[in-house]
């Protein structure tokens, strides 16, 4: 008997694969909406932890997809979600790559690019906003988010150093997840 959640996950990520213009970071709000608010597979705190793990691990940021699947249906869930997320977009990319060269300077191609760019930017801003709303419940957390964003924008620091510094400050209790008990 196949776990129905596995089918649900697969269908959701097959769809998301084709909607993820701008990559995996663009679909974080939709993943949160579906996994936390529609399906109640996990809490905000679970989602926050999954996001942190996906960012702390080596590899592409699409790994968050496998962790959502893992949380819902174990190792099988992780693998199925990843395959579903990469499948349709990879097939599309494969075929578009074949014809792309011919349309290099076509006005339609330029128009498509110019029309999708602002959508991608809007989606990535949405991810930042939804993650901040989901994660930050204490002023020290907002401060950590703001300090990281500003540091990356003004200085050439490797992001891993900033995540490491945050982990240390968190473990020491300087950055507080929330008022009162741990969520």
């Amino acid at each position, binding site marked *: 008997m196949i776990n129905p959640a596995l089918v649900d996950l697969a269908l959701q990520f097959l*769809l998301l694969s*084709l*909607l*993820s*213009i*701008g*990559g995996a*970071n663009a*679909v974080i709000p*939709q993943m949160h909406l579906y996994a936390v608010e529609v399906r109640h597979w996990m809490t905000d705190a679970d989602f926050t932890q999954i996001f*942190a*793990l*996906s*960012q702390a*691990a*080596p*590899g*592409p940021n699409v*790994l968050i997809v*496998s962790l959502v699947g893992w949380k819902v249906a174990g*190792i099988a869930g992780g693998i199925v979600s*990843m395959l579903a997320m*990469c499948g349709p*977009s*990879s097939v*599309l*990319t494969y075929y578009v*790559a074949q014809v*792309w060269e011919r349309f290099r300077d076509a006005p339609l191609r330029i128009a498509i690019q*110019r029309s999708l760019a*602002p*959508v991608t*930017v*809007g*989606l*990535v*801003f*949405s*991810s930042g*906003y939804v993650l*901040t709303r989901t*994660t*930050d419940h204490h002023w020290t957390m907002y401060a*950590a988010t*703001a300090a*990281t*964003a*500003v540091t*990356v924008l003004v200085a050439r620091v490797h*992001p*891993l150093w900033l*995540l490491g*510094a*945050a*982990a240390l*400050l968190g473990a020491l209790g300087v*950055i*507080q*997840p929330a008022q009162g008990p*741990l969520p």
Partner: protein
Amino acid sequence: MLFWGFLKIGLSGFGGVLPFARHTLVERERWLTEQEFTEVLSLSQFLPGPNIVNVSVIVGRRFDGVIGAAAATLGLLLMPLVIVLLLATLYAEFAQIDAIRRACYAVSAAASGLIIAMAVKLSTPIRRTPWQVAVCAVTFAAVAVARAPLFWVLAAVVPVSLAIAWRDRE
């Protein structure tokens, strides 16, 4: 060869692997020129799907069709997938320890900052075009504030944006 090349790319990157992909493909293995890499990347960003996965599909396809694309993508994702699932299993074991949970929340706060910074960087080329700023704002309002499902937001916003871009072409 493709498999191993992309295996190394997959393992090398923390918080995004694109810079490492460029280094491996252009400088070390010389599979692509700088110009070719930029073209592959722009196509990957414009198509749906994880950008680096699209890069591996396009580069793999160039070398060996479907088999090349599959080998490159598998190489890219295999080890990171194993590592992240291992990490998650370990984390589940140790999540009762307060300091580890606290560290995890703090990392999440900082990583949210990385995403915001990335959005700011991505916005550079669209800031001077009012209609693009408007499309960006509408997308944000629908997805982040109203929490509308992504499918419907894109179904509504993309055709309008495309129509404006078409009328605005030089």
